[in-house]
């Protein structure tokens, strides 16, 4: 049952991707509306799938790389839907949805692995830690896409030869504001994710901070975004620089999310979760 739901989600996300790509080419409102609906349908089925996994596993389904990617994709779509309610930028979907479909495709190619659920995963703080950290990361993905869109639009206007993107992308002001809001909310959630993470570490390992590579890199990511927010608020960075930096920060985040787990040893790595090599 859950495999069917996963495949259906994947199918709907890919369909929505095609729809959103066609939408940005054709600029047909109808296409945008329907891509949105397909995406929303996919999101609901994805949610159902995650609930089902939660009941089967007894813990939040983000314990291995396969589940993490799928959960991250879900969180990004959730963030997109929330931001769409406020900003109503449908064309954002043309940037976000292909990325999530890509994550889902990778997730689908990874074989299912057995994970051992230890009591910690069933506690109160673990789901809070995972959900806030993932949602924060997802909102940073939105900020990054807004940054990319900003840079494209800025190039269009600066070049004095506005090309096909000029009419399709929203104004610089709106993109900058989207970028700013996303970074603020993302930062807030990431901060909560890190605090709950250290509460968890205290509970299970007896210390708030263990210098685990994931922790270190999360701190680096957090500092990057903190610097960006500071520059925005205090120094008055906006527009182009803020856009570039939010893309840079997101690359660091991606490394923290994926790279650390593969390249470095630590209790956050999926291998150790599977084998439970706890320090």
């Amino acid at each position, binding site marked *: 049952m859950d495999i069917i739901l996963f495949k259906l989600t994947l199918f709907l996300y890919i369909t929505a991707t095609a729809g959103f790509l066609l939408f940005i080419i054709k600029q047909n409102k109808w296409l945008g509306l329907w891509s949105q609906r397909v995406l929303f349908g996919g999101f609901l089925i994805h949610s159902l799938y995650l609930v089902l996994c939660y009941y089967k596993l007894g813990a939040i389904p983000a314990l291995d790389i396969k589940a993490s990617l799928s959960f991250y994709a879900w969180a990004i779509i959730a963030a997109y839907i929330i931001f769409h309610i406020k900003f109503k930028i449908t064309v954002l979907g043309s940037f976000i949805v292909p990325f999530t479909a890509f994550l889902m495709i990778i997730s689908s190619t990874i074989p299912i692995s057995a994970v051992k659920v230890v009591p910690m995963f069933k506690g109160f703080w673990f789901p809070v830690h995972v959900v806030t950290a993932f949602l924060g990361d997802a909102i940073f993905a939105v900020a990054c896409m807004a940054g990319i869109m900003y840079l494209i639009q800025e190039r269009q206007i600066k070049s004095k030869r506005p090309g096909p993107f000029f009419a399709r992308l929203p104004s*610089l*002001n709106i993109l900058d504001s989207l970028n700013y809001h996303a970074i603020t909310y993302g930062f807030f959630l990431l901060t909560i994710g890190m605090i709950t993470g250290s509460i968890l570490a205290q509970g299970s390992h007896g210390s708030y901070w263990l210098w685990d590579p994931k922790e270190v890199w999360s701190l680096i990511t957090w500092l990057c975004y903190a610097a960006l927010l500071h520059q925005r608020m205090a120094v008055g960075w906006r527009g182009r620089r803020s856009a570039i930096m939010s893309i840079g920060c997101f690359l660091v985040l991606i490394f923290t999310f994926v790279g650390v787990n593969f390249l470095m040893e630590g209790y956050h790595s999926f291998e150790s979760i599977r084998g439970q090599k706890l320090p």
Partner: protein
Amino acid sequence: MIKIVDIGMNHNTAPVELRELLNFSDDNLAVAIEAIMGIRGIKESIVLSTCNRIEIIFTTDNEKDAQESVIDFLSKHSGVQRDKLLSAMYIKTGSEAIRHIFRVSSSLDSMIVGEPQILGQVKEAYRDAVKHRAPSVVLNRLVHRCFYLAKKIRTETGISESAVSISFAAVELARKIFGDLHGKRAMLIGAGEMAELAATYLLNNSLGEILIANRTLSRAVELAEHLHGKPISLEEINDQLLGVDIVITSTASTDPVITYENVKKVMKGRKNRSLFFIDIGVPRNVDPNVNKIENIFVYDIDDLKGIVEQNIENRRGEAAKAERIVDEEVLKFSQWIKTLDIVPTIVSLQDKCEIIWRNELKKTLSNLGDQPHDKVEYLENMARSITKKILNDPILFLKRKQDRKSRDTYLDFVRQLFSLDPDNGGESGRRSKSLHHRGTEDTE
């Protein structure tokens, strides 16, 4: 057989001097409609008269004579000789006329393709004609198809999307930088005509406040009054750069009014908020290097002209798409008009009834089970003769209307009553509603 005819001239076929002579102003438009409706053989008509074109649209059973009479009337009205008039006019009939009218109202035949005024002018012409009860079944439907088609083309193609005037291109750029212009502030440096026009466009897009600096203060004050702005002196420009979002320059100064160093300094104080320079001055008033500063956008007159040219080019491409939509609609309309004749209507009426009785007979027979051949034949004959008797009077009625002026009205009525055009079923209700809706749109 009823035919649509369009006799007209436009900006391509006739010079403005000739168009002026033929132009029907408000007063003599009524006279023209009355005169055309008085011509023998003309059943319905609409007169469209704008500064770029004159179109006399009418339906007739007698194409040749009606055409001659209309041209005679135009010649008399304008005082231009027939031959001269004919050389500057086009006469389109049948599906060519339909296509032409569709293209005109969709702004494909306009001087600037995609300009939105023409549809309003067509609506106006139609309303005037309706006052004189000049249009009827055919032209009513034609005009409603025009409205539908123009809307479809506007939404499905990009023919009226991009700006094709310099002022409008500047406004479009401003909107892509600032989004909503509400509450944004602009500064005019130099009070030339072009700058004034651009400022007016900006104000129409709910710009917040406008400051005007000019070498002669009296002109600044005068323009400020006109635009509800605030006059400032030239010395204040640099200070004001801190607080404005859009700057329009159009001075005759040979040295740049806005320099790189000036703006660079100001940007710190602005906390890097975007600033948009529209430089209409020749030679340029804003140092081109200013564009290199982050979050600053400088467009000079040539840049804006470049955009306009590119947009006009894009519109031409979109127009090709629109032509295909028109082709489709012309085909549909020509087919409909062909059915608007006695014989095809009678045939489709008979066909429809035959389909009904055959279906009912089939149902009955399947309920009765196997029946001998002759009994089936009896039933068939009965069904056939009932239908024939029922249809007898309506058919005779239609035939009697063959040569009456009201023929088309009755034909249309019969076709609707028996819903003989399944595509267009219930269309009339929708049509009148949409017309009403559009009517209110216009007054806004």
